[in-house]
């Protein structure tokens, strides 16, 4: 059974195996398919039209399934690998071990945002930006520039305490847990982390930065924590909602999985704590 661990607790060997598996997916071309899929959904999910991956109740189950696909791809390379998560409310500075050269590498240089160290630095030759929205072919970051602070634990708590999963109009204007976690409303958790990292992470092709997976693995863990805290509250809406994925409706692009199938993560993996 897959156990997803806090990235801060990984051994040197676990970090190396994770990085090597990610690089292997990149070499084979499979990695870029994930980037492409994400960008297609982010461009087409709209507040007034069909919305599946973002700005909608299915933001959480969609990314859960997306991460499962990626984790399975990693495990096809190295069966010992699981997705780690980044608790950005505790590891919240550029000095966190997450950004060390033996793991994801650090922030970009000031002139052009280019990441200069770590296994994903352009100079190492293993991390070309193939799916991109502009001419630049190197991984970029600007940690803590566009927004100063990552969310605090108190801010996370304030969102976890919301007892309603989601609310009409089921988009970026909604109140409730999902939209406050996604960040279009309120203290802003998930969106703010994308902005804090900067570079490709702030764009539609955000999975170009491997930290995408660690960020979303933690967002996914927060959903699980919310469920534990509110056992009587469930996914909504539960039927008949135009443009929105109801509980028992299948989700694109898989078309064979429903939010209802993804509510219980323990069918697929557990967390270290």
């Amino acid at each position, binding site marked *: 059974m897959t156990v997803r661990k806090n990235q801060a607790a990984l051994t040197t060997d676990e970090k190396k195996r994770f990085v090597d598996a990610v690089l292997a997916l990149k070499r084979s071309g499979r990695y870029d398919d994930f980037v492409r899929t994400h*960008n*297609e959904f*982010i*461009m*087409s999910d*709209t*507040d*007034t*039209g069909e919305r599946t991956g973002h*700005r909608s109740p299915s933001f959480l189950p969609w990314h859960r399934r997306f991460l499962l696909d990626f984790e399975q791809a990693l495990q096809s390379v190295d069966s010992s690998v699981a997705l780690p998560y980044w608790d950005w409310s505790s590891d919240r500075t550029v000095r966190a071990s997450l950004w060390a050269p033996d793991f994801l590498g650090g922030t970009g240089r000031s002139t*052009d*945002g280019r990441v200069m160290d770590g296994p994903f630095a352009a100079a190492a030759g293993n991390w070309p930006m193939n799916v*991109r*929205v*502009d*001419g*630049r072919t190197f991984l970029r970051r600007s940690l803590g520039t*566009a*927004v100063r602070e990552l969310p605090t634990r108190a801010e996370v708590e304030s969102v976890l305490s919301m007892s309603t999963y989601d609310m*009409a*109009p089921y*988009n*970026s*204007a909604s109140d409730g847990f999902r939209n406050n976690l996604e*960040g*279009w409303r309120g203290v802003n958790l*998930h*969106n*703010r982390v*994308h*902005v804090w990292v900067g570079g490709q992470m*702030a*764009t*539609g092709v*955000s999975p170009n930065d491997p930290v995408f997976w660690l960020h979303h693995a933690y967002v996914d863990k927060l959903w699980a924590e919310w469920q534990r805290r509110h056992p009587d509250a469930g996914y909504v809406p539960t039927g008949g909602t135009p443009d929105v994925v109801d509980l028992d409706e299948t989700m694109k692009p898989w078309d064979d999985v429903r939010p209802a199938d993804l509510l219980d993560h323990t069918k697929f993996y557990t967390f270290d704590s």
Partner: protein
Amino acid sequence: MPDISRRRALTAAAALAVTATAVGVAATAASAADHTHPMPMPETFDEVYKGRRIQGRPMGGGGHHHEHGGGFEVLIDGVQLHLMRNADGTWISIVSHYDPVATPRAAARAAVDELQGAPLLPFPAN
């Protein structure tokens, strides 16, 4: 927003349609759920910002597939920037997707800042 100020915003938008200049009204938009009051068209603009030409204008009739800006498009040095309007009237673009700003012009400027001189690639028309 109280009805009275919305009506004022719509009046301003009507004036805009004639003069194609004046204050931005996008941020005063009606709620997304309220389809009976479509959000006003943002102001047209054409300027050089940090050495790059940014333009914003109502879309021509010609069958653009990606039309998430409520019929408004933004170009950077002639290349279309994928733009999206949020339910609260704020805007995001493909190069700044998690950080809403008040107007399409602000989104275009944010994109120029983010690009640091790099060319924007035309998005795939899939």
